[in-house]
């Protein structure tokens, strides 16, 4: 069984008397160590896709199996647990806790897992070292550059050793030089065996990925495995 299996996923929103079909019958499977990009214009349903993949939202109909678990049968607390154990989020606007240091931010998901303070520190330091921020652990987010903040966010996503890393426009707020650095980091993570799903509207970003799923009007428009994927070492 694939790591992620979506079958017949729909997501409808009611806007007044109009029904908006954000997702309209998605069937897709993602294997372990896949490196996948969802692309599409705004309103194509890729953000809704990300919310459902990230267990932040539930589909209107359809089945979602993550790591052989049937996700849509779970309640809010169980979804929190799934997010904590299986998913690492990387957001466009970094979404770091403003009053916590880099180390505190990376330790935070481990708090919800019930891991003690010293063990948390150890794991968080390891993750920060992995993204190359071992010397910035005591800085608050507003003392860090955009690229550094995104690295902290990536460390926070990595620290729980999740099944998938979900990135939502990870370079949208970054300059081109930092973008390249972050995408290099993604490529490295992929080669280390992580499963990455990136939502983006930039072709350049998507070109890093092995598989590109183009979405349009809530449907999968094109699903291609690219062989020109740049894998840097």
């Amino acid at each position: 069984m694939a790591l992620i299996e979506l079958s017949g996923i729909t997501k409808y929103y009611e806007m007044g008397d109009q029904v908006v079909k954000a997702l309209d019958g998605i069937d897709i499977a993602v294997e372990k160590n896949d490196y996948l990009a969802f692309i599409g214009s705004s309103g194509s349903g890729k953000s809704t896709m990300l919310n459902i993949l990230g267990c932040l939202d539930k589909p209107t109909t359809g089945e979602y199996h993550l790591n052989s678990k049937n996700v849509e049968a779970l309640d809010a607390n169980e979804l929190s647990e799934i997010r904590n154990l299986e998913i690492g989020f990387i957001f466009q606007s970094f979404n770091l806790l403003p009053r916590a240091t880099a180390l505190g931010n990376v330790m935070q998901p481990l708090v919800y897992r019930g891991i003690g303070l010293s063990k948390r520190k150890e794991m968080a330091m390891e993750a920060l070292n992995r993204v190359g921020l071992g010397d910035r652990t005591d800085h608050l987010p507003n003392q860090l550059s955009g690229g550094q903040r995104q690295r902290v966010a990536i460390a926070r996503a990595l620290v729980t050793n999740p099944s998938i890393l979900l990135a939502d426009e990870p370079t949208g707020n970054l300059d081109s030089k930092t973008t390249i650095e972050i995408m290099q980091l993604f490529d490295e993570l992929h080669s280390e065996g992580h499963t990455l799903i990136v939502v983006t509207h930039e072709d350049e970003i998507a070109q890093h990925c092995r598989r590109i799923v183009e979405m349009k009007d809530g449907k999968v428009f094109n699903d291609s495995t690219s062989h020109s994927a740049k894998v840097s070492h």
Partner: protein
Amino acid sequence: MFFALIESSRSALISIYAHGLRSFLTTLGIVIGVASVIAVVSVTQGMSSFIGDTFATLGSNSLTIRSFTPFEDQMKGIRARLTPEDMELIEKRGEGIASITPVLYATRSSQIKYGSQTAFSQIMGTTYAFQEVSQSYISIGRFLAQSDNDTRRRVAVIGEKVRENLNLPDNPINEYVEIGGEWFKIVGMLEPKGEIMGQSQDDMVLTPYNTMRSLLGNQTRADISIQLSLTETADAENVSQQLTTLLRNAHDLASDEDDDFVIQTAEQLMETFDTIINMVTIVIGGIVSISLLVGGIGIMNIMLVSVTERTREIGICKAIGAKRHHILLQFLIEALLLSLLGGLVGLGIGYGLGTLISNSIPSFPPANIPLWSVGLALGFSGFVGVLFGILPAAKAANLDPIDALRYE
């Protein structure tokens, strides 16, 4: 659960510290509330324990019997009386009585003169048994003796306050004072007892009972009061019951008539005072605790603002795995800690205030904070914190992660 509590407290403390000034202002309502409750309680309880101590010196197992005329009867010119015969009766037939003495108050004039000084005092005629019954002992000189009474000697025992008022020498023994136009020789002075509710217990002049009777002249139907002390095994309640029956028979009261006398125990008197003080404590404390409620509403208000302000943070926490109880606990504990910290600060300020009040008013008893009031103040402020923290905390915990993440 314990782990979650510790982690929530940790982040709550960080948040309180990060918003130092705001946290302080938020909790000010609780600080003021607790401070005033503690100040009120400490002052009134200090007074109460002081009164308790004072009454203990009055002799806890003594009874006082006096005549009692209802107001309506007074209007009709009827006066109830206790007579020496009543006392004889009680002396003969009463049970459980250790000693008994009549007390006859000077009715015409309570003026007392020494040289050019004039003072007003409580002048009483009584017997040597008075010192045992009222626990009044001599500091210098001697008490009234049986022979003083038998021979109607013009001698007096005075309290410390009287000596002061009359400018008598430190040792006033053998000085003469004038009471009702007669000269009395001072033979003894009582040990000072202090004040009860601003009423000096040392402002009294004791003369022999028979001397006082002759001084009052031809009032054959003099109204006396009777003080008696009980034997150790006697029960005040039983004795006063028995005496009531005895006196009702002696006064020929029909069963539908009210008693024309009252029997008072020192304990009763103390309980009356205690009741009054407790009432005052409860009423003022109640009024003041309204400010605690107001303080709680202030906390709720700020917590609600804080939840809105931190909506995005809550969304982030939920996205990385926070469950409902994590968020709920964090905000609830933040509210609880805010009000508990306020309670602690208020406790200190209240204690200082109470001490200041009781020290700055002369003859006021020292402040006394009973442990229950500390517990109550902290318990109540904790309760307020939880009560008014629940709404914001629940609001935070119930936020939808997507909406919260999108919140700008």
